[in-house]
């Protein structure tokens, strides 16, 4: 007995399938583009906001400490890019030494605080007692293309901070600021450099 095929079981013809697949591909392409571009935008926004927040965090920490400092010193490591800033500060209470180190090898800014003088670490081999403030830090350049040091002394009591936070593809947030200590100069008990 041959069963007569029901109408509902009839398949698509080849033409129908080709047309439907073409249309489906077009729709998929459009939807895919939308999703890809949305994901790209999301990544960009995430990088920008993350680097902006990271940079501000670094600057806020440095500004508060230097603003309450009584002495400051900035030195540069042998590689010419890694810079070390040490201050004697009373921020938050008793006088103490506070230091930041920009490691050009690790592309990171570290900080360390102590009740005694802090020595400059070696680029690429920063001790574990240092806390990382931010990764992805790269030096910036001035209008003439010269590389600016991340930390530079400004006058006798101030410091200029210049850096960019690197995204996955390029530096995306630039930070340049300067801050000066307000208290009378003193570098004793403890002597920080």
């Amino acid at each position, binding site marked *: 007995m041959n069963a007569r095929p029901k109408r509902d079981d009839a398949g698509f013809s080849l033409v129908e399938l080709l047309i*439907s697949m073409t249309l489906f591909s077009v729709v998929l392409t459009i939807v895919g583009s939308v999703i890809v571009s949305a994901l790209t935008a999301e990544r960009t*926004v995430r990088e920008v906001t993350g680097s902006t927040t990271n940079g501000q965090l670094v600057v806020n920490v440095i500004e508060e400490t230097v603003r309450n400092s009584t002495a400051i010193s900035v030195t540069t490591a042998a590689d010419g890019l890694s810079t070390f800033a040490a201050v004697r500060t009373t921020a938050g209470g008793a006088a103490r030494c506070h230091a930041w180190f920009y490691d050009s090898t690790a592309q990171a800014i570290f900080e360390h605080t102590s009740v005694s003088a802090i020595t400059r670490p070696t680029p690429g081999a920063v001790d574990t007692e240092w806390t990382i403030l931010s990764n992805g830090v790269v030096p910036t350049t001035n209008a003439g293309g010269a590389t600016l040091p991340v930390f530079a002394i400004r006058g006798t009591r101030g410091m200029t901070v210049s850096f960019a936070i690197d995204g996955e593809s390029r530096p995306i947030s630039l930070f340049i600021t300067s801050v000066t200590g307000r208290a009378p100069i003193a570098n004793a008990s403890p002597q920080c450099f």
Partner: protein
Amino acid sequence: MLLTKLLRRAAKGSNDRGNAMIAVIGLLAVTSMITLTVTGATVQALGYTSLSRAGVQSNAAAESGVDAMLAALFADACPATGQLTATQGSVNPALAGTAATAPFYVATVSQRISTSAAWTPGCAVGATTQIRIQSTGFASDEGVADSASGRDASAVQAVYTWRPGANSAAVTGAAVFSYGTPGLANSLELLSFNGNSANVIVRTGNIVCSNSVYVQGDIIAANGNISLDNTCSAGGKVWASGTVSLQGNKTIGGDVIAAGTGLTRIDPSTDIGGGVFARGEIDSWGQRCSTGATGWDAAGDACSVARTTGADPVFYNRADVAAPAEPAWVDVNFVPADWVSRGWTVSTYTGPCTIDNRTRNNAQVLAFSTYTTPTAIDMRGCSSVIFSSSANLNITMRTDLTFIMPRNVNLENFTVVSPTSVDRGLRFITPDTVADGVPTTTGCGRFDINNRNDLEAPIAVIVYTPCAVFNSNQLTWRGQYYAGSVSFANNSQLTYVPIGIPGFDLGNGAGGPGGAGAVGGTPTPGTPGDLISYVDVPA
């Protein structure tokens, strides 16, 4: 949707409708997640950025509060409540309504009398040594997220030393003001310092100077003659209401002015840097210029002076030569309340009147070196005060000191030192209790200063007495004298550093009508001094 419709039409059935719905839901889910992620990151970043902005604004506001309070203190306008406030509208006129009335800063001042004392809210008082300004500033643009409100307010604290106004007496007057006839002799040097010219001014009486005296400033006899003998020189002018007599080798840096009608005598060996102005005629014994006169030749003598001394011009018989002004005597009485009102502590001395090797360790004597706030020590309970050479008294000045003395004083062999480089004023005052514009000498003995008295920078001294002052034997002082009469002998050196007396202007005769019984002049307010610390504090 088009695809769905086509498929539905082709199938003419409803079994495949769920596929389209799933596709739509899937797309919506993906885009929603992305949207949520982007929105969350953006809001978080904006929140932190607004936090940073609020922190910068509130910090600036707090620091401006400190500056405003400092300006008020320098202007002697400390607010009665000890608090200064400002609103956002006062710094940004464009604001209106609630935004304009929001606080910008609140600055308060406190003071203390020593580094170990507690802070007392309010403006500085007489004994204040330090002030503290605490200021809270508020951001005009507050953080936009809950987590960003932590820096809407910031506070700073600045501590300054306090310079009491009592230290700011009118720094005028001569290096040596002698109301009566002075004695200037025997290796005396009066030196100018820091732009202040060391002048000798005598109100009434002749000035007779001899034996290696050098006055770097002017020598002025307001009502008398001047006679300079034997290398007695002046760096400035010599000015007498009467006549001037210059004998022996000497140098006069400025003019020689004789306002009297008598004969002015000028040794041809004198070196005169200025001119000669005489109301009378001039006598000189150098080679006269030839004028053809056969008798007394005033013109020839004047010409001789110009030729031999270098004076230019040389005038004689000039009616327009003016006499120096006759300065009034300033009566300085001692009224304790007036000194207290100027920030001084008054201490009545009841220790030994003769301080020698037996009494120098008396507690009240040792206290001289322990005072840390300006102190006036009233020693008038003694009929005479003697710092004996046997005591070899050494006083450490940690603040300004004023000794109120009786009418007999003998200071021998004492040394005053300062532990810091801060300027210190040491005053010896024998009060003039009668407001009559002249020295009241009733009961006067002598004010003797003898035998190696050393007083070096940064300390300066003033001796005020209506009685006579006698200096002798290796005196090395910085300061000034204002006395009924002043005499120097034997290797005295005084570097003129004017410190005056609080409430009086010795150089201009100020101090109320006659001065006695009341401190005249306007009290000089205290001001903030050096910055000690400046830190952030919790808001």
